[in-house]
Structure formats: C-alpha cells, structure tokens
C-alpha cells in the first residue's frame, strides 16, 4: 500500500506555520540563550511572528481565493480568515499584557513553577525574573486556536483543540503571587478540560459511526442521506457540543470558569477571555453551520435552553460576586450566552454578528483586565471589590476608563457592547429565536447592575485606608489599554468599517 502525499497550499497555511515555527524557535531560545537575555529575545520574536502571521492573513483575505488544502484537513475561507485575524490581533494585545514587567519586578509569572509553594526555595525565587517559556506556549496556543477555526474535519479539530488547550493549562499555573490558588486553578482546568475533550472525542467516534466520515462536508451530506440510526447522530452531536460548550463556558459546563479566571495570572485570564472565546466560538460556528446545518431543528431547542440558562445564571451570579476577577468570569459566562444566541440564529446575520461580537468583547475584556492588573498594593493585585471603593478619587483617569469599559459591558449605547448585543439579538429575532432574545434582554438588564455597582463603588464611596493606588502602567500595558478602550469606542460609535469586514467575509466554505 502506498500513501500519496496530499497537496499542501503552504501560502494558505502560512499564518499558522509562522506561529508554529516561531514557537519552536522560542523553545530553542529558552534552551540556548542566557537567562538574562531571554526576555529581550522572546518578546520581539513573538511580536514579529504575530505581525507576520497577521500580514499573511491580510494577504490571504485580499486574495479572496478560498481553498481546502492539506488533504481536505484545513479550509481557508472568509469567516475562517476573519477569525484567524481576530485571534492574531487580540493575541498581540494579550502579548502586551503578558510582556509587562514594570508593574511587578520580573513580571506576572513565577520564575520556577515546580518549586513547592511557600518553601525556602520559593521565597528565594520571588525576586527572580519570570519564566520566558510563556511566550512560545502562547504562540503554540494561538496557532492551535487558528487551526481550530479553520479545521475542516473533526480529527484536525480535535488535534487543534489539544494544541491550544495544553499550553493554556500550563500557563494558568504560573502566577507569581498566590501560587497555590494558581496551581489549583491549573489542575482543575486540566482535569475538567480533559474530561470535556473525552466527550468531544467520543462524539467524533459516534459521528463517524453515523456518517462514515469525519469531514464536515461528508457529515453534512450524511445528515440527509445516511440510513444509519439517527440516535448515533444525536448522541454524537450532543457529545461534540458538550466539548465545545465547555470551552465557551456555557452553563452547566461553566463551573471551571470562576476558579480558573481567579487563579490564573491576570494576563493569561485576559488572554483566555479574549482569544479562547474567539477560537471556541469559531469552532462551534463552523461545526454547527457547516456540518450540522440540516439538523438545526434537532439541536436548536436544546442549545437554546443552554443559551438561556447561560445568560441567566451568568448574570444573576455576577450580582453576588465580591471579587473583580470572579465578576468578570461570570460576565464572561453571560456573554457566552449572548454569543450562543447569535450562533443559534443559524442565518448569515447570526454568523456576522457573532463574529463581530467576539471581536468587540475581546477588546473590551482585554482592557478591563489590563486595569485589574494596575490596581495593586504591596501584596499584588487588589481584586476584592471592597478594595476598589473610592478609586475614582485616587485615580480619576483609570477609574474613568474602567467606568467606560463597564458601561460597554452593560451594553450602554455608543459603546461596542451595545452594537454587538443589538446585532446578535436582531439576528436571533431574524432566525425566529425571539424567546431567546427576550431572555437575553432581561439578562443584560440584570447584568448591568453588577457593573454599575462597581462604578458606584469607585466614584461614590470614600476611599478607605486600604484603597490601593493604581500603578503607573508600563508602555506595554498602556498600549494594550489604549487599544482596548479605543476599539471599544470605535466599534460603538462607528462600527460600519468592522461590520463591512465581517460582511465581506461571507459564508463558510463547505
């Protein structure tokens, strides 16, 4: 038996190949370059790789030639490129947060992750600069996310899922402060993530049993024509959905979110909130729109209930949170519900506005976590909300920016939050999911309350003795904050450019 090598369109894969290559180079850098030089090599290397990858995405988008390549394992189409581009851009902003070393000597990451927390060796390493392996791991994760959005069959998708998940599990464990919390978060995320991956893989097997194929086009054809038992299809679809819903943090698969968001180093939390969200929804969109479009009558009621539960549970639980990172975690859960609402419209508007929402939310959440990084005292970040009381009097500029971001989360008009929510809800109404929109509107009304509570706390409370100050951001954090806030404003006031971009992206290639 001879294998025929599939033809590979290297240019089409270039955005991902650049990142994988740079990530491998980054591993070598860590092995070969002296410790004190590594940071100064890794950051430019990652940045250049991301810029190059972004350049290739733009070039491919301009080529307007949509291809299925690598033996039909990867598809490069308009929405896929848009999602890849979003991941790269949001990844660059997240990289700025990761690279910040001015707020905390040595950065937000521990020097040696394997040292027992609280031991003598641990105290010694407190002053050493953080690990630089985070950069190649981030690049691996980003490349995996991009592949996840462009996979054309379930097996490639599964590989991509693991490629971007494993670095994330590790990155979660690397916080310099509150080491135990960080390690606990990482273990929880890993165990539950593995559990979810198992569901996904089981779903792949079921679908293969039903369709005899794992590529999306084949599944799509089989949904109409296969004579196999429909039970296989439904169980398979449910299992696949569970694996994906875990990543997007939908109820009841959201349980990891608050713990992991709280425990992970804040730049990594920001990275997950922005980029993982894009990748997970990119994958979900592709699976539902390309492979299972014809069974939408089967899954829409069930996934609709999940979306409704996600919106309600996320919003209501956000009300009772007292830690800003946990609050943002539950807000991320609720936002997953709004995104699911857009996804389930199962029409072109749904695809467009869900992608727009992902970008809009990504920028806002990155900027919000950037400010969380800045509010700190001698013990590191002050994340308990009580400590934020009166922040507006101490640092009016940052409190104003955070207020603006909170208003964006609350969906107040002329911020990107309004445009995005309006878009997905309108799309869902167009897709006959009006009942979901009603729940969505009610949920966003509830969710506005915790955000406004933070605003009131910052401005209308008298600062206490333990109100931390806002540190002066380094150039990296300042840049991330600026980009995040500026995009939140631009996408709220004049979203037409970005909307034309998602419109031009067109539909998925089948």
């Amino acid at each position: 038996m001879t294998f025929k090598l599939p033809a590979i369109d290297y240019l089409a894969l270039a955005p991902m190949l650049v990142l994988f290559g740079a990530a491998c180079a980054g591993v070598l850098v860590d092995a070969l370059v002296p410790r004190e030089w590594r940071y100064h090599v890794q950051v430019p290397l990652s940045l250049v790789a991301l810029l190059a990858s972004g350049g290739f995405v733009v070039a491919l988008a301009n080529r307007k030639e949509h291809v299925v390549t690598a033996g039909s394992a990867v598809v490069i189409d308009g929405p896929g490129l848009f999602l890849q581009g979003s991941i790269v851009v949001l990844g660059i902003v997240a990289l700025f947060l990761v690279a910040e070393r001015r707020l905390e000597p040595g950065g937000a990451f521990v020097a040696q992750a394997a040292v027992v927390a609280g031991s003598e060796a641990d105290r010694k390493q407190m002053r050493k600069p953080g690990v630089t392996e985070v950069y190649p791991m981030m690049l691996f994760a980003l490349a995996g996310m991009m592949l996840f959005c462009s996979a054309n069959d379930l097996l490639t998708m599964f590989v991509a899922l693991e490629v971007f998940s494993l670095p994330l599990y590790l990155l979660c464990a690397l916080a310099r402060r509150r080491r135990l919390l960080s390690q606990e978060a990482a273990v929880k995320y890993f165990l539950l993530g593995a559990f979810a991956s198992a569901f996904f893989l089981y779903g792949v097997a079921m679908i293969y049993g039903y369709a005899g194929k794992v590529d999306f086009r084949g599944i799509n054809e089989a949904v109409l024509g296969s004579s196999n038992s429909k039970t296989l299809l439904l169980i398979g679809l449910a299992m696949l959905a569970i694996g994906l819903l875990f990543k997007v943090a939908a109820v009841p698969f959201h349980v990891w979110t608050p713990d992991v968001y709280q425990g992970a180093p804040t730049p990594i939390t920001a990275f997950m909130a922005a980029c993982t969200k894009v990748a997970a929804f990119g994958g979900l969109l592709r699976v539902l729109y390309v492979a299972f479009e014809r069974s939408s009558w089967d899954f829409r009621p069930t996934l609709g209930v999940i979306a409704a539960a996600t919106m309600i549970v996320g919003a209501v639980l956000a009300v009772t949170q007292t830690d800003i990172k946990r609050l943002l975690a539950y807000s991320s859960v609720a936002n997953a519900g709004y995104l699911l609402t857009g996804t389930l419209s199962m029409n072109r508007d749904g695809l467009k506005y869900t992608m727009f929402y992902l970008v809009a939310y990504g920028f806002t959440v990155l900027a919000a976590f950037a400010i969380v990084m800045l509010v700190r005292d001698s013990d590191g970040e002050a994340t308990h909300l009580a400590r934020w009381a009166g922040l507006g009097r101490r640092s009016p500029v940052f409190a104003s920016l955070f207020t603006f971001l909170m208003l964006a989360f609350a969906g107040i008009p002329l911020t990107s939050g309004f445009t995005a929510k309006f878009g997905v809800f309108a799309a869902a109404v167009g897709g006959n999911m009006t009942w979901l929109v009603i729940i969505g509107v009610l949920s966003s009304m509830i969710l506005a309350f915790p955000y406004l509570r933070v605003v009131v706390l910052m401005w209308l409370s008298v600062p206490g003795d333990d109100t931390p100050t806002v540190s002066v951001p380094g150039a990296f954090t300042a840049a991330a904050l600026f980009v995040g806030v500026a995009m939140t404003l631009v996408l709220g006031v004049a979203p037409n450019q970005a909307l034309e971009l998602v419109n031009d992206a067109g539909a998925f290639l089948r």
Partner: protein
Amino acid sequence: MDNIQYSAAVEYAAASGTLSSIWLLFAIPLASAAVLFLLGRRADKWGHLLGVASVVATFVLGLVYFFQLKGLSGNRSAEVDLFSFMPVGSLKVDFGLLLDPLSAVFVLLITGVGSLIHIYAVGYMAHDPGRRRFFAFFNLFIAAMLLLVLGNNYVMLYFGWEGVGLASYLLISFFFDKPSAATAGKKAFLMNRVGDAGFAIAMFLMFAQLGSVNYDDVFNGVNQLTQGTVLVMGLLLLLGACGKSGQFPLQAWLPDAMEGPTPVSALIHAATMVTAGVYLIARSNAVFSANATLQTVVVSIGALTLLIGCVIGCAKDDIKRVLAYSTVSQIGYMFLGVGLGGAAYALAIIHLLAHGFFKAGMFLGAGSVMHGMQDQVDIRRFGGLWKYMKITWITFGLGYVAIIGLPPLSGFFTKDPIILAAFNRPGWTGWLFGGAALLGAGLTAFYMTRLFVLTFHGPKRWTDGQHPHESPAVMTVPLVLLAVGSVASGFLMSTSVVDWLTPVLGKHAEEHGRLGHWTVTGMTMAVVALGLAAGVLLFRKGTALEEQPAGPVVTAARNNLYADTFNELVFELPGRYLTRALVFLDNRGIDGVVNGLAAMVGGGSGRLRRAQTGYVRSYALSMLGGALLVVAALMAVTLG
C-alpha cells in the same frame, strides 16, 4: 378609533441649507461636557460658565432652526443621515436625525427651560466643591435628551433614552455622602431598567416584523401587522414609557429621585426627562392609534396614575416630594391625553410644555425656599415666608395658580381640554376617565393649596435659628422668567402649537361629544374652587408640627400607597430567591444535590457536611449531569 387621517404615507424631507447642521444641537453640549470632564480641576474656575453658555447657545441655535423649519412650505421636516451606523445585511440602522414640528418644540423646551435651570444652578451650587462636575453631567444630560428627541429611528431614541437614564442616575447620586441618595439612584436605575427592557424588546419586534426601526418605515408598516402584534409592540413601548415617566406600576422611583440637588429635580424629574415617555407615545402615535385596546390601556394607566399622584401628594410633608407626586399626577394627565388619541395628542403635548414651565418654576422656587431656610424641606416647619422672600412667593404663587388650572394661567388652557376630551370618549369609559380627571383636578387644587399656604402663609413654625432671606439675582431671574412662561404659555399655545403639530399628529375634525366645552369648564372650576377652599380653611392657621396618627387611607397615602411593598413583592423577592437558589446550586453543584439525596435516603445527616464547595469532582459531576441532560434533551426533542 379610526379618526386618524394620514392623507399620505409618512415621509420626511431631506434637510437642506442650515438645517443640515442640526447635529450641532447635541454636539455643542456634548463637547462642553467633554471639556469639563477632561480638563478636570483646571476648569473649576470657569467650568460652570462654559456649561451655561453651551446650553444658551444651543437654545439660540434651536430658535434659528425653529424659524427655518417654520419657513419651509409643505412637508415641514428635515432629515439628516449623518452616517450609516450599521450598514450591512438585513439590519440597517443609520445615525439619522429628524427635525419636525414635534421634535422642534421639544428642542425649544429642553434648551429653553434647560438654560434657565443652568443659570439658576450657578447660584444654587455656588458653594459646592463639585460644581464643575455637576455642570459636566448637566450638559451630558442635555445632549442625551436632545439626541432622544432628534433621532429619526428608534435606535437613536434608545441612545438618548439610555443616556438620560445614566445622567439622571449619576445626578441623583450626586450628593453621595447621603446613603439615601445612593439608594434612590439605585432604585431609579433599576426601575428604569425594567422599562428599558420593554422598549428594547419592542425594537427587536419591529425589526422582526417590519425589518426596520426607522420611524417612517414603522409607521407606514403598522397597518400590515396583525392586531395582536400591534398590541404587544405597543404594550412593550408603553412599559418603557411608564418606566421613564414614573407611571403606574413603575412610579415609585420618581419621588425618591428628589434626593438629588434641586436643579436636577427641576430639570430632569419635572421638566424634561420624565416627559420622554409622553414623547415616545406621541411619536409612535401611528402604533398607538392602530389598536383600541392599547389606547384603553394607556388611558387607564394615565387615569390611575394621576389619582395615585394626587392622593399621595395630599399626605406628604416634604416640599419636594409633594411636587414630585404632583409631577407623577400631571404626567398622568399627559398619558391620559395621548391615550385618548386623535386631537388629544396635541393637548397632551401642550400640557407637557406648560407643565415644563410651571413645574420647573415651582421646583426652583422650592430650592429657593430651602436655600433661605438652611435646607429645611418639611412644610410643617415653614409658614409666613411671603414677607421674607417676595419674589419666590410671587413666582411660586403663579406656578401654583397655573397648575391648579385657574384662568387665565396656562394650566387652564392645557388641562381643561384634556378633561373635556376624557369625558367625550365614547361609551361608559368616558364617564369613568372624565370623572377621574375631574376628581384629580379637585385633589390637585387641595394639595397644592395646602403646600402653598403652609409654606408662605399662616403662623411661623420654623425651627430655631432660621433667618429666611431672598435668594440672589442669579436664582430669582430664572424664577421670574419661568413664571412669565407659566402665565402666558397656555393661552399662546392653545391654538398655535396645536396647528403646528398637525403634520406629525394628524389632522382631526372638531369633535362634539356628550358634554359641551362650557359645561366641563364649569364643573372643573367648581371642583377646583372646592379643593382650594378646603385647603385654605384647613391650613390657614398652620398645622401640627409632628405627624399625627391617622386613619387607614392617610396612612396608606403616607406609605406611597404601598408601591414599595408592591415592587418588593413583584420584582425584588423573586429576584432574591432566584439569586439564592442559583448561588446555592453553584456552590454545592450537582454533587450537593446527589449527596443531599443520599443523606436523606440513608438518614445520615452527617453526610450532608461532605457537600463541600470547590472540589473538582463536584464540578465534574455537575458536568456529567449536564451532559446527560443535553443528550436526553436532544433525543427527546427529535425522537420523542
């Protein structure tokens, strides 16, 4: 209810000449607010002057546009599409503005009354360290309010709607060292959100049914919708309007909002923002006129709220709260008007404009009294003030005569026709709503007389150390101008403004109902005289200094007719239990439920303690439970 006569489809003319720059109207106060925010303390010295200048400039500009619009022949409207907000796909929303007769009168009211209140606030806030910030919020509010009335589609209206809500929330909470102010701000915000949710869903419904949220598309498309859809859409819009305008069942926030500084109460919670609900209904008159049930609901809410406001107003002793409940009640009259439909739309609008003058005047007068009485607000502790603050006395008195509707002041020309129109509603409901409006007029006369007499006349009942004095000119001049407006506006507007509004609200034939004009006027005058006489007789000798025990009716009125209890039961309690249940489930997870069941079955209560939080296995179990549910649900939906 098909007396509406749209001769042609609704169509707006594109703006030309100077009218194409109507965006300046909201851009000027917005720019001023931005400057005041961004410059921070550097602008403390002159910030208030900039704030005043920007609003006055906007008023002048509004006048220019008004006369431009007047000069147009035929279709008096100017539509400007600034840019395409959401350009692509089936959902198109433009950042579009529309200046037509309806929005033009609102622009003049907002900027005119707004200018006077800004000037007054310069004096009122003179000693407040946060004066610059106050003016920044004030300008922001004006900009948002102008955006609200100038939009050419519902999304623009919603922008302004949320903007004024936000500004009002921030301004109520302005006196933040008072916990009551923070609570009031929160309450205003929450109850407005309930209304906003209705409005937002109505917009999505329009989009789903008509594919557009532009005024002209919606109004022209209403006829194609089923009656059920129109009813639902209208009720949702009405919910939004009730939230913003403090109408039943969402009226409880408005009086609490009086915790904010007095100029805020005057501008936002009397003259402008609270009338946004009336604007919404008047603007959507094509929707509301298309369904008779809908109109009946609006009329009922108006009639009910106007009585609620009157009854509670009789029992309150806080000068600002009495005025607040009178606002609730007067907006009830406006809702009654817009609900009656037909010719009464225009009546509601002119009552709104007149109300803007006399209520702003009285609120500022109350502020002037508080200014001279060391922030005392209890009317039992006033008395005999007419001698000490003559200008405040006279101007407040004119506002008072205007609100109770004595001729020839404005209330007479604007409120009486609404009562007449209510009586002339066909069927037995005409008697009901007319009777309610008439009763309201009598009660208004009574409680406003009580307020006026107890404050300015009778024996002095001051607390120790009071030295009342007249306020400075910067505060009294606006009072005088507003008083002139309360005197003259009614007669001037009663025909001219009604004609002016015809293109928007439709032309309606003169109706002759069951009761003649003079009959109703006579009845109203008799009832008002009765209320006035009762008020004077009861309170000319003053009143007890403390709250006296009272019967069930008065106690209920003192407790705002238990509206807070109602809200707690309907909104707060379910929310609280939902939160608790979810927190419980989230902490315990499915693990807890399973363990709990096991404990109950096994009878070992000790096992319950093992239902701990934060364990991965508990999380994994809840995921497994969720997975089973998802699979089962998918199978059930398809195969079941």
